[in-house]
Protein backbone atom coordinates (compact mmCIF):
# COMPACT_ATOMS: atom_id res chain seq x y z
CA UNK A 1 0.00 0.00 0.00
CA UNK A 2 1.37 3.37 -0.95
CA UNK A 3 -0.48 6.58 -0.10
CA UNK A 4 -1.36 8.70 -3.16
CA UNK A 5 0.42 11.65 -1.52
CA UNK A 6 3.65 11.18 0.40
CA UNK A 7 3.21 11.04 4.18
CA UNK A 8 5.84 11.52 6.87
CA UNK A 9 6.22 11.11 10.58
CA UNK A 10 6.72 14.65 11.93
CA UNK A 11 6.73 13.81 15.62
CA UNK A 12 7.29 10.74 17.76
CA UNK A 13 7.52 9.93 21.46
CA UNK A 14 7.16 7.13 23.93
CA UNK A 15 6.60 6.37 27.59
CA UNK A 16 7.62 3.49 29.83
CA UNK A 17 6.46 3.45 33.47
CA UNK A 18 9.05 3.77 36.23
CA UNK A 19 8.69 0.46 37.99
CA UNK A 20 10.02 -2.96 37.02
CA UNK A 21 9.67 -6.50 38.24
CA UNK A 22 12.32 -9.08 37.48
CA UNK A 23 11.20 -12.25 35.71
CA UNK A 24 13.17 -14.20 38.31
CA UNK A 25 10.95 -12.69 41.03
CA UNK A 26 7.85 -13.94 39.21
CA UNK A 27 9.48 -17.35 38.80
CA UNK A 28 10.23 -17.40 42.52
CA UNK A 29 6.54 -17.03 43.38
CA UNK A 30 5.41 -19.84 41.10
CA UNK A 31 8.26 -22.15 41.98
CA UNK A 32 9.77 -22.12 38.50
CA UNK A 33 13.41 -22.21 37.56
CA UNK A 34 14.92 -18.82 36.87
CA UNK A 35 16.83 -20.15 33.87
CA UNK A 36 15.59 -19.67 30.30
CA UNK A 37 13.06 -17.01 31.25
CA UNK A 38 11.53 -15.16 28.29
CA UNK A 39 12.73 -11.70 29.48
CA UNK A 40 14.99 -10.16 32.15
CA UNK A 41 12.38 -7.85 33.58
CA UNK A 42 9.22 -6.04 32.58
CA UNK A 43 7.70 -2.63 33.24
CA UNK A 44 4.92 -2.26 35.82
CA UNK A 45 2.38 0.54 35.70
CA UNK A 46 1.60 2.21 39.02
CA UNK A 47 -1.78 2.57 40.79
CA UNK A 48 -2.36 5.98 39.25
CA UNK A 49 -1.41 4.99 35.69
CA UNK A 50 -3.50 3.51 32.94
CA UNK A 51 -3.68 3.32 29.16
CA UNK A 52 -4.87 6.93 28.92
CA UNK A 53 -2.22 8.44 31.22
CA UNK A 54 0.59 6.67 29.35
CA UNK A 55 -0.85 7.66 25.98
CA UNK A 56 -1.00 11.29 27.10
CA UNK A 57 2.67 11.36 28.05
CA UNK A 58 3.75 9.62 24.82
CA UNK A 59 1.46 11.90 22.83
CA UNK A 60 2.82 15.03 24.51
CA UNK A 61 6.37 13.93 23.67
CA UNK A 62 5.37 13.36 20.04
CA UNK A 63 3.67 16.75 19.80
CA UNK A 64 6.77 18.42 21.32
CA UNK A 65 8.93 16.91 18.62
CA UNK A 66 6.41 17.80 15.91
CA UNK A 67 6.52 21.41 17.07
CA UNK A 68 2.86 21.96 16.13
CA UNK A 69 -0.15 23.30 17.99
CA UNK A 70 -2.27 20.41 19.30
CA UNK A 71 -5.29 21.91 17.53
CA UNK A 72 -3.62 21.17 14.18
CA UNK A 73 -4.23 17.50 14.85
CA UNK A 74 -7.48 16.32 13.27
CA UNK A 75 -7.48 12.68 14.35
CA UNK A 76 -6.43 10.79 17.48
CA UNK A 77 -6.38 7.01 17.43
CA UNK A 78 -5.41 4.95 20.44
CA UNK A 79 -4.63 1.32 19.73
CA UNK A 80 -4.93 -0.83 22.84
CA UNK A 81 -6.30 -4.01 24.31
CA UNK A 82 -6.64 -2.40 27.73
CA UNK A 83 -9.15 0.33 27.04
CA UNK A 84 -9.86 2.44 30.12
CA UNK A 85 -13.56 1.70 29.75
CA UNK A 86 -15.04 -1.19 27.79
CA UNK A 87 -17.44 1.36 26.35
CA UNK A 88 -16.24 5.00 26.20
CA UNK A 89 -13.16 5.88 24.19
CA UNK A 90 -9.71 6.22 25.69
CA UNK A 91 -8.91 8.56 22.81
CA UNK A 92 -11.34 11.31 23.91
CA UNK A 93 -9.64 11.56 27.31
CA UNK A 94 -6.26 11.62 25.58
CA UNK A 95 -7.40 14.18 23.00
CA UNK A 96 -8.83 16.44 25.71
CA UNK A 97 -5.75 16.19 27.91
CA UNK A 98 -3.49 17.06 24.98
CA UNK A 99 -5.61 20.04 23.90
CA UNK A 100 -6.64 18.51 20.59
CA UNK A 101 -10.41 18.63 21.12
CA UNK A 102 -13.00 19.51 19.89
CA UNK A 103 -12.43 19.51 16.11
CA UNK A 104 -11.00 16.04 15.75
CA UNK A 105 -11.70 12.41 14.94
CA UNK A 106 -11.12 10.08 17.85
CA UNK A 107 -11.45 6.38 18.37
CA UNK A 108 -9.91 3.37 20.06
CA UNK A 109 -8.48 0.59 17.90
CA UNK A 110 -8.35 -3.04 18.91
CA UNK A 111 -6.26 -5.67 17.14
CA UNK A 112 -4.30 -7.09 20.04
CA UNK A 113 -0.65 -6.08 19.68
CA UNK A 114 -0.96 -4.50 16.24
CA UNK A 115 -3.61 -1.95 17.18
CA UNK A 116 -0.91 0.73 17.30
CA UNK A 117 0.29 0.13 13.75
CA UNK A 118 -3.36 -0.14 12.62
CA UNK A 119 -3.82 3.35 14.05
CA UNK A 120 -0.76 4.44 12.10
CA UNK A 121 -2.06 2.93 8.83
CA UNK A 122 -5.39 4.77 9.11
CA UNK A 123 -3.57 7.96 9.99
CA UNK A 124 -1.47 7.65 6.84
CA UNK A 125 -4.60 7.32 4.72
CA UNK A 126 -6.44 10.23 6.38
CA UNK A 127 -3.50 12.54 6.07
CA UNK A 128 -2.72 11.59 2.46
CA UNK A 129 -6.35 12.17 1.47
CA UNK A 130 -6.16 15.69 2.80
CA UNK A 131 -9.05 15.09 5.18
CA UNK A 132 -6.85 16.09 8.13
CA UNK A 133 -3.61 18.07 8.32
CA UNK A 134 -2.05 16.00 11.09
CA UNK A 135 -3.01 12.74 12.76
CA UNK A 136 -1.84 11.26 16.06
CA UNK A 137 -1.49 7.46 16.18
CA UNK A 138 -0.82 5.93 19.58
CA UNK A 139 -0.23 2.41 20.81
CA UNK A 140 -0.68 2.10 24.58
CA UNK A 141 -1.22 -0.93 26.76
CA UNK A 142 -1.06 -2.24 30.31
CA UNK A 143 -0.99 -5.92 29.50
CA UNK A 144 -2.74 -8.32 31.84
CA UNK A 145 -0.86 -11.40 32.91
CA UNK A 146 -2.86 -14.22 34.39
CA UNK A 147 -1.19 -15.15 37.70
CA UNK A 148 1.02 -18.20 37.18
CA UNK A 149 0.61 -18.20 33.40
CA UNK A 150 3.64 -18.01 31.09
CA UNK A 151 2.46 -14.66 29.75
CA UNK A 152 2.72 -13.15 33.22
CA UNK A 153 6.50 -12.94 32.77
CA UNK A 154 6.18 -10.70 29.75
CA UNK A 155 2.94 -8.72 30.12
CA UNK A 156 4.39 -5.21 30.37
CA UNK A 157 3.20 -1.60 30.10
CA UNK A 158 4.11 1.27 27.80
CA UNK A 159 3.02 3.66 25.05
CA UNK A 160 4.34 5.25 21.88
CA UNK A 161 2.85 7.99 19.73
CA UNK A 162 3.44 9.30 16.23
CA UNK A 163 2.27 12.49 14.54
CA UNK A 164 1.81 12.09 10.80
CA UNK A 165 1.33 14.72 8.11
CA UNK A 166 1.80 15.18 4.37
CA UNK A 167 5.48 15.25 3.51
CA UNK A 168 7.07 18.61 2.85
CA UNK A 169 4.63 20.67 4.91
CA UNK A 170 6.18 20.38 8.38
CA UNK A 171 9.54 19.10 9.60
CA UNK A 172 9.74 15.57 8.19
CA UNK A 173 11.41 13.06 10.50
CA UNK A 174 10.82 9.90 8.44
CA UNK A 175 8.82 9.34 5.25
CA UNK A 176 6.55 6.34 4.69
CA UNK A 177 7.68 4.38 1.64
CA UNK A 178 4.86 1.88 1.74
CA UNK A 179 3.15 -0.79 3.81
CA UNK A 180 1.48 -4.18 3.60
CA UNK A 181 -1.16 -5.52 5.96
CA UNK A 182 -1.53 -9.30 6.07
CA UNK A 183 -4.58 -10.42 8.06
CA UNK A 184 -6.46 -13.70 8.52
CA UNK A 185 -8.92 -15.02 11.07
CA UNK A 186 -6.48 -16.94 13.27
CA UNK A 187 -7.62 -17.54 16.89
CA UNK A 188 -4.24 -17.71 18.66
CA UNK A 189 -5.07 -15.35 21.58
CA UNK A 190 -8.42 -13.86 22.69
CA UNK A 191 -10.42 -12.49 25.61
CA UNK A 192 -14.18 -12.83 26.00
CA UNK A 193 -16.31 -10.03 27.43
CA UNK A 194 -16.30 -9.97 31.23
CA UNK A 195 -13.07 -11.96 31.49
CA UNK A 196 -10.11 -10.28 33.15
CA UNK A 197 -7.31 -12.30 31.57
CA UNK A 198 -6.92 -13.43 27.96
CA UNK A 199 -6.67 -16.99 26.74
CA UNK A 200 -3.91 -18.16 24.42
CA UNK A 201 -3.07 -21.36 22.65
CA UNK A 202 0.61 -21.70 23.62
CA UNK A 203 2.70 -22.92 20.71
CA UNK A 204 -0.12 -22.26 18.21
CA UNK A 205 0.68 -18.54 18.66
CA UNK A 206 4.10 -19.21 17.10
CA UNK A 207 4.38 -20.62 13.59
CA UNK A 208 0.74 -20.37 12.38
CA UNK A 209 0.22 -16.94 13.93
CA UNK A 210 3.28 -14.78 14.67
CA UNK A 211 5.77 -16.16 12.15
CA UNK A 212 3.32 -16.80 9.32
CA UNK A 213 1.78 -13.34 9.30
CA UNK A 214 4.96 -11.34 9.80
CA UNK A 215 6.82 -13.28 7.12
CA UNK A 216 4.02 -12.86 4.62
CA UNK A 217 3.65 -9.15 5.23
CA UNK A 218 7.38 -8.41 5.16
CA UNK A 219 8.14 -10.52 2.08
CA UNK A 220 5.28 -8.92 0.14
CA UNK A 221 6.40 -5.44 1.21
CA UNK A 222 9.99 -6.02 0.10
CA UNK A 223 8.68 -7.45 -3.21
CA UNK A 224 6.39 -4.47 -3.82
CA UNK A 225 9.12 -1.96 -3.08
CA UNK A 226 11.86 -3.92 -4.84
CA UNK A 227 13.91 -4.09 -1.64
CA UNK A 228 16.01 -6.76 0.02
CA UNK A 229 16.95 -7.24 3.72
CA UNK A 230 20.32 -5.53 3.29
CA UNK A 231 18.54 -2.34 2.15
CA UNK A 232 17.33 -1.80 5.71
CA UNK A 233 19.50 -0.26 8.42
CA UNK A 234 17.06 -1.04 11.19
CA UNK A 235 14.31 -3.56 11.64
CA UNK A 236 11.75 -3.71 14.45
CA UNK A 237 9.47 -6.68 14.94
CA UNK A 238 6.70 -7.21 17.41
CA UNK A 239 8.32 -8.61 20.54
CA UNK A 240 6.21 -10.89 22.74
CA UNK A 241 9.45 -12.31 24.15
CA UNK A 242 13.15 -12.07 23.32
CA UNK A 243 13.24 -15.22 21.16
CA UNK A 244 10.49 -14.69 18.54
CA UNK A 245 11.66 -11.38 17.02
CA UNK A 246 15.23 -12.67 16.72
CA UNK A 247 14.03 -15.87 15.08
CA UNK A 248 11.75 -14.14 12.56
CA UNK A 249 14.48 -11.61 11.78
CA UNK A 250 17.01 -14.34 11.05
CA UNK A 251 14.53 -16.36 9.01
CA UNK A 252 13.88 -13.30 6.83
CA UNK A 253 17.58 -12.63 6.34
CA UNK A 254 18.15 -9.81 8.86
CA UNK A 255 21.19 -9.59 11.10
CA UNK A 256 21.69 -8.70 14.76
CA UNK A 257 23.08 -5.19 14.03
CA UNK A 258 19.82 -4.43 12.26
CA UNK A 259 17.39 -5.54 14.98
CA UNK A 260 19.31 -4.89 18.17
CA UNK A 261 18.32 -1.20 18.63
CA UNK A 262 14.60 -1.89 18.44
CA UNK A 263 14.69 -5.03 20.60
CA UNK A 264 13.58 -3.79 24.03
CA UNK A 265 11.43 -6.67 25.30
CA UNK A 266 14.20 -8.12 27.53
CA UNK A 267 14.10 -4.88 29.56
CA UNK A 268 10.45 -3.82 29.53
CA UNK A 269 8.51 -6.92 28.55
CA UNK A 270 5.86 -7.07 25.85
CA UNK A 271 4.07 -3.72 25.77
CA UNK A 272 1.42 -5.16 23.44
CA UNK A 273 -0.05 -2.48 21.17
CA UNK A 274 2.91 -0.24 21.96
CA UNK A 275 5.62 -2.87 21.39
CA UNK A 276 6.57 -2.34 17.73
CA UNK A 277 6.02 1.39 18.07
CA UNK A 278 8.27 1.76 21.12
CA UNK A 279 10.89 -0.18 19.14
CA UNK A 280 10.44 2.24 16.23
CA UNK A 281 10.74 5.24 18.56
CA UNK A 282 13.95 3.81 20.02
CA UNK A 283 15.34 3.44 16.51
CA UNK A 284 14.38 7.01 15.60
CA UNK A 285 16.22 8.17 18.76
CA UNK A 286 19.49 7.11 17.09
CA UNK A 287 18.85 6.69 13.34
CA UNK A 288 20.68 8.87 10.80
CA UNK A 289 19.09 10.68 7.89
CA UNK A 290 18.91 8.43 4.84
CA UNK A 291 18.64 5.21 6.84
CA UNK A 292 15.79 2.85 6.06
CA UNK A 293 13.65 1.25 8.77
CA UNK A 294 11.33 -1.76 8.59
CA UNK A 295 8.59 -2.25 11.14
CA UNK A 296 6.87 -5.64 11.28
CA UNK A 297 4.14 -5.64 13.88
CA UNK A 298 1.96 -8.57 14.85
CA UNK A 299 -1.44 -8.70 16.49
CA UNK A 300 -3.09 -11.91 17.58
CA UNK A 301 -6.35 -12.72 15.88
CA UNK A 302 -4.23 -12.34 13.60
CA UNK A 303 -2.31 -9.99 11.40
CA UNK A 304 0.87 -8.12 10.65
CA UNK A 305 1.56 -4.58 9.40
CA UNK A 306 4.87 -4.26 7.59
CA UNK A 307 5.89 -0.64 7.10
CA UNK A 308 8.98 0.76 5.42
CA UNK A 309 10.26 4.24 6.32
CA UNK A 310 13.20 6.37 5.30
CA UNK A 311 14.70 8.76 7.86
CA UNK A 312 14.92 12.43 6.86
CA UNK A 313 17.19 15.33 7.85
CA UNK A 314 14.47 16.69 10.13
CA UNK A 315 15.27 14.03 12.74
CA UNK A 316 18.43 15.77 13.94
CA UNK A 317 16.60 18.94 14.94
CA UNK A 318 14.01 17.32 17.12
CA UNK A 319 15.52 14.19 18.58
CA UNK A 320 16.35 15.98 21.82
CA UNK A 321 13.06 17.88 22.09
CA UNK A 322 11.55 15.19 24.32
CA UNK A 323 12.79 12.28 26.46
CA UNK A 324 14.20 9.33 24.54
CA UNK A 325 13.07 5.74 24.99
CA UNK A 326 16.33 4.80 26.69
CA UNK A 327 15.80 7.70 29.14
CA UNK A 328 12.61 5.97 30.28
CA UNK A 329 14.14 2.51 30.23
CA UNK A 330 17.14 3.42 32.36
CA UNK A 331 15.03 5.22 34.99
CA UNK A 332 13.67 2.32 36.98
CA UNK A 333 12.72 1.14 40.44
CA UNK A 334 12.23 -2.55 41.26
CA UNK A 335 9.16 -3.92 43.02
CA UNK A 336 8.51 -7.35 44.43
CA UNK A 337 5.62 -9.60 43.47
CA UNK A 338 3.43 -8.40 46.35
CA UNK A 339 3.65 -4.76 45.28
CA UNK A 340 3.27 -5.76 41.63
CA UNK A 341 0.07 -7.63 42.50
CA UNK A 342 -1.19 -4.62 44.48
CA UNK A 343 -0.48 -2.19 41.64
CA UNK A 344 -2.03 -4.45 39.05
CA UNK A 345 -5.07 -5.17 41.19
CA UNK A 346 -4.52 -8.91 41.33
CA UNK A 347 -5.89 -9.17 44.85
CA UNK A 348 -9.62 -9.83 44.94
CA UNK A 349 -11.01 -6.72 46.55
Amino acid at each position, binding site marked *: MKPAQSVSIIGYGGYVP*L*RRIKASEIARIWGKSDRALPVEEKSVA*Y*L*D*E*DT*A*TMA*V*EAGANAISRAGIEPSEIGAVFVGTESK*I*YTVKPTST*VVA*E*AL*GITPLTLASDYEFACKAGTEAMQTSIGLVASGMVKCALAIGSDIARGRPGDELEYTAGAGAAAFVLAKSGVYNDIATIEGSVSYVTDTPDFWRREGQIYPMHYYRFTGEPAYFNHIRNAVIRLMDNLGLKPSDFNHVVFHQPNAKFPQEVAKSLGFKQEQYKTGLLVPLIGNTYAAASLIGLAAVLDVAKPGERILVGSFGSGAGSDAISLVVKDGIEKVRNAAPKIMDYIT*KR*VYVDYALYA*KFRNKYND
Partner: protein
Amino acid sequence: MSAPIYWREKLYRYRLVASYCDKCNKKYYPPRPVCLQCGNTELREVKLPNTGTLISFTTVYQTFPEFSKLAPYVIGIIRLDDGTTIVAQLTDVDQIELKEGIRVEAVFRKMYEDGESGLIYYGTKFRPVSR
Protein backbone atom coordinates in the same frame (compact mmCIF):
# COMPACT_ATOMS: atom_id res chain seq x y z
CA MET B 1 -19.16 12.13 42.25
CA SER B 2 -21.43 13.26 39.52
CA ALA B 3 -20.64 13.13 35.80
CA PRO B 4 -21.59 16.79 35.17
CA ILE B 5 -19.48 18.04 38.10
CA TYR B 6 -16.46 16.11 36.87
CA TRP B 7 -16.96 17.19 33.29
CA ARG B 8 -17.22 20.87 34.00
CA GLU B 9 -14.02 20.97 36.07
CA LYS B 10 -11.85 18.95 33.67
CA LEU B 11 -10.03 21.75 31.81
CA TYR B 12 -7.84 22.93 34.67
CA ARG B 13 -7.38 19.40 35.98
CA TYR B 14 -6.19 17.99 32.67
CA ARG B 15 -4.12 20.91 31.48
CA LEU B 16 -2.91 23.12 34.36
CA VAL B 17 -4.89 26.13 33.19
CA ALA B 18 -5.04 29.11 35.58
CA SER B 19 -6.83 32.47 35.75
CA TYR B 20 -4.69 35.51 35.13
CA CYS B 21 -5.40 39.05 36.32
CA ASP B 22 -3.44 41.42 34.12
CA LYS B 23 -4.07 44.36 36.47
CA CYS B 24 -2.31 42.65 39.41
CA ASN B 25 -0.12 40.28 37.38
CA LYS B 26 -1.43 37.49 39.56
CA LYS B 27 -2.28 33.92 38.56
CA TYR B 28 -4.79 31.72 40.34
CA TYR B 29 -4.79 27.92 40.26
CA PRO B 30 -7.39 26.49 40.51
CA PRO B 31 -8.90 29.17 38.26
CA ARG B 32 -11.47 31.65 39.54
CA PRO B 33 -13.64 34.36 38.02
CA VAL B 34 -12.76 37.32 40.26
CA CYS B 35 -9.34 38.59 41.32
CA LEU B 36 -8.97 38.39 45.10
CA GLN B 37 -6.60 41.35 45.16
CA CYS B 38 -8.35 43.95 42.99
CA GLY B 39 -11.80 42.57 42.18
CA ASN B 40 -11.14 42.45 38.42
CA THR B 41 -13.77 40.24 36.77
CA GLU B 42 -11.98 39.99 33.42
CA LEU B 43 -9.49 37.28 34.16
CA ARG B 44 -7.91 35.38 31.25
CA GLU B 45 -7.15 31.69 30.89
CA VAL B 46 -3.42 31.00 30.90
CA LYS B 47 -1.45 27.78 30.79
CA LEU B 48 0.95 27.34 33.69
CA PRO B 49 4.47 25.97 33.14
CA ASN B 50 4.85 22.23 33.60
CA THR B 51 7.89 22.41 35.82
CA GLY B 52 8.69 23.86 39.21
CA THR B 53 10.43 23.47 42.55
CA LEU B 54 9.16 21.66 45.63
CA ILE B 55 8.72 24.01 48.59
CA SER B 56 7.23 21.74 51.22
CA PHE B 57 5.72 18.28 51.26
CA THR B 58 4.03 15.80 53.55
CA THR B 59 3.34 12.09 53.30
CA VAL B 60 -0.33 11.46 53.96
CA TYR B 61 -1.13 8.27 55.84
CA GLN B 62 -4.72 8.82 56.95
CA THR B 63 -7.07 9.82 54.19
CA PHE B 64 -10.47 9.36 52.53
CA PRO B 65 -11.78 5.99 51.32
CA GLU B 66 -11.16 6.98 47.69
CA PHE B 67 -7.42 7.42 48.28
CA SER B 68 -6.83 4.66 50.80
CA LYS B 69 -5.29 2.19 48.37
CA LEU B 70 -2.88 4.86 47.16
CA ALA B 71 -1.83 5.85 50.69
CA PRO B 72 0.72 6.71 51.80
CA TYR B 73 1.08 9.39 49.14
CA VAL B 74 2.72 12.77 49.06
CA ILE B 75 1.16 16.23 48.92
CA GLY B 76 3.44 19.16 48.14
CA ILE B 77 3.55 22.91 47.75
CA ILE B 78 5.21 23.62 44.40
CA ARG B 79 6.47 26.89 43.03
CA LEU B 80 6.13 26.65 39.27
CA ASP B 81 8.72 28.29 37.06
CA ASP B 82 6.56 31.40 36.55
CA GLY B 83 6.33 31.99 40.30
CA THR B 84 2.81 30.63 40.77
CA THR B 85 2.47 28.45 43.88
CA ILE B 86 0.19 25.47 43.76
CA VAL B 87 -0.64 22.56 46.06
CA ALA B 88 -0.74 19.17 44.37
CA GLN B 89 -0.18 15.48 44.79
CA LEU B 90 3.21 13.99 43.96
CA THR B 91 3.78 10.61 42.34
CA ASP B 92 6.63 8.25 41.37
CA VAL B 93 8.54 9.28 44.49
CA ASP B 94 9.81 5.75 45.30
CA GLN B 95 13.41 5.66 46.38
CA ILE B 96 13.86 9.37 45.86
CA GLU B 97 14.96 11.43 48.81
CA LEU B 98 12.31 14.10 48.82
CA LYS B 99 13.75 17.45 49.84
CA GLU B 100 12.74 21.05 49.59
CA GLY B 101 14.23 22.46 46.43
CA ILE B 102 14.02 19.43 44.13
CA ARG B 103 12.69 19.96 40.63
CA VAL B 104 9.30 18.47 39.74
CA GLU B 105 7.28 18.19 36.53
CA ALA B 106 3.56 17.83 35.79
CA VAL B 107 2.17 14.48 34.65
CA PHE B 108 -1.33 13.34 33.71
CA ARG B 109 -2.47 10.62 36.08
CA LYS B 110 -5.51 8.89 37.47
CA MET B 111 -6.81 10.44 40.71
CA TYR B 112 -9.29 7.76 41.74
CA GLU B 113 -12.19 5.66 40.49
CA ASP B 114 -15.80 5.67 41.53
CA GLY B 115 -15.83 1.99 42.47
CA GLU B 116 -16.06 -0.83 39.96
CA SER B 117 -18.79 0.63 37.79
CA GLY B 118 -18.40 4.39 38.15
CA LEU B 119 -16.26 6.92 36.33
CA ILE B 120 -12.47 7.17 36.31
CA TYR B 121 -11.19 10.57 37.44
CA TYR B 122 -8.04 12.07 35.97
CA GLY B 123 -5.93 15.04 36.93
CA THR B 124 -2.43 16.45 37.19
CA LYS B 125 0.20 15.28 39.64
CA PHE B 126 3.89 16.12 39.88
CA ARG B 127 6.89 13.82 39.83
CA PRO B 128 10.57 14.42 40.62
CA VAL B 129 12.50 15.36 37.50
CA SER B 130 15.95 14.06 38.23
CA ARG B 131 16.59 10.40 38.71
